[in-house]
């Protein structure tokens, strides 16, 4: 099955940066209401605006291999990067995952995220792959970082075609 790339299985068995850590600026809890998968995710950022740097993403997931692995890749790809870069990566992931297979993904931008290209052919699993990413952008919004400024297109919110309706509960630490 081309869905379960070796990279995905590796990330799901040994997710990188897993566990909840201090310090953090915001913590969110997202649920995929159709299957009950859950992620609790914290972000720690330094600085302001889109030049702020994501110092840490820590998380606890209860979900399938796709959602766990995707959150692991997320942590790999955004920790140490600016909010601006992190949001570009999110947009590149989202674009690939919702492309129904027409966007193979840009490895420069999303790293191991390209392993998830096959997920785009299974619409029911796109929600799984996006769970951690949606939690991350929500946490950024709640962290107090003003990510709406800057040169790049700020449209990182859910677009109508995104097949995701997370039940969200968030709090700001």
């Amino acid at each position: 099955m081309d869905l379960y790339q070796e990279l995905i299985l590796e990330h799901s068995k040994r997710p990188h940066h897993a566990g909840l850590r201090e310090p953090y600026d915001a913590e969110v809890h997202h649920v995929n209401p159709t299957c009950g998968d859950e992620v609790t995710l914290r972000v720690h950022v330094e600085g302001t605006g889109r030049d702020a740097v994501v110092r840490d993403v820590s998380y606890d997931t209860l979900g399938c291999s796709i959602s766990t692995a995707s959150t692991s890749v997320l942590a790999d790809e955004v920790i140490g990067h600016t909010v601006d870069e992190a949001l570009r990566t999110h947009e590149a992931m989202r674009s690939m995952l919702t492309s129904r297979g027409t966007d193979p993904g840009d490895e420069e931008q999303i790293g191991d995220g390209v392993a998830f290209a096959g997920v785009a052919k299974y619409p029911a699993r796109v929600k799984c792959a996006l769970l951690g990413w949606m939690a991350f952008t929500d946490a950024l919004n709640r962290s107090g970082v003003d990510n709406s400024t800057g040169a790049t297109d700020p449209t990182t919110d859910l677009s109508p075609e995104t097949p995701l309706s997370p039940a969200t509960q968030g709090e700001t630490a």
Partner: protein
Amino acid sequence: MTAAPFSAGESARIRADFPILSRTVRDGKPLVYLDSGATSHRVARALDAERSYAEEVNAAVHRGAHQLSEEATDRYEAARAAIAGFAGGRDDEVVFTKNATESLNLVAYAFSNSVAGQAKDPRLGLREGDEVLVTEMEHHANLVPWQELCRRTGATLRWVPVTDEGRLDLTDLGSLLTERTKVFAFTHVSNVLGTVNPVRELTAAAKAVGALTVLDACQSAPHLPLDVGDLGVDLAAFSGHKMFGPTGVGVLWGRYELLEQMPPFITGGSMIETVRMEGSTYAAPPQRFEAGSPNVMQAVGLGAAVEYLEELGMDRVAAHDHVLTEALLDGLAQRPWIRVVGPTDTTDRVGAVSFVVDGVHAHDVGQVLDDQGVAVRVGHHCAWPLHRRFRVTATARASFAAYNTLDEVAVLLGALDRVPSVFGVAV
């Protein structure tokens, strides 16, 4: 069980009645559809009945003086009669709804609308200190409406717990079902566990304390002979698309004298007796509960579907289901890395079999099965509290209908054997 399961020849003929079963999925693999608990396939004659209705008689029912309207009304009412016969009730006790969820909400709102309207029938009153009893194995459709009813009225929701084996734990029923209990709503068959609940025992206990009983018959109607009178329930709900009929139609059956006391849920045209600017009075059941243009075509389709089920013979459908369930449970028992959530023997159990594979999430299990053409449900199956009780986030569920075969059980088991290697899990 005295009835015989379907022979190979009969099975082949039954399968031919469901056109979709001949299609392939995922690069030419034969479809092995084991998700009928979520939605069953439509029998050709139900589709034919819908098309014939639309092409030959389509008209507004219960109004109009022309011939089409008469014929449309006849077909709609004939469907009602067929369903009443199938469920063991009277024609005027069958209410068409959009789905079973609406049927159950209709009942829940009968209580709160009675309270708001100060209805006389004390059975439909509900206030602080009163209790609503459900079970821990309910589908959200037979849980959330009662939670909401309790929130609106101040009544207290209580529930019968479930044992580790997946059956109702009736040890403390005496303290749960008391004079305070106004309504006891429970499922006939768990959509997750496959457990068949002891309905007669529960209705007798409810009667003894004066509580009304509401039965969720969604999973039993397609699997077992259903006789609402014999079961002793006051109200029962089931759903067209789970029993070879279309989506968009459900049924509420209720004892007539009770329906007569129930205020309407949705109001408007078709359900009135007289209307004045100052206020209105309402039609007798079942019309009182069928406001607006009804889903006639779907009702006609469901009427044809229940006639089909009756021709198959519900005792034989049940016997066939029993054989498939036994084969699947045996096969799963030989695979110690699979854990069944629900009874592992076939006593008082039907073919909805949920399971978890150690170390592999249900979504991932379902994906591997799908790759082999096997369609199962994964997730919490709209029974989240039940999954919590078994400390699992999600399960995979295979559920049967009359058109499934032992060969398909074998394909499922073979596909399951691929799961451990895909995810590198030791068996």
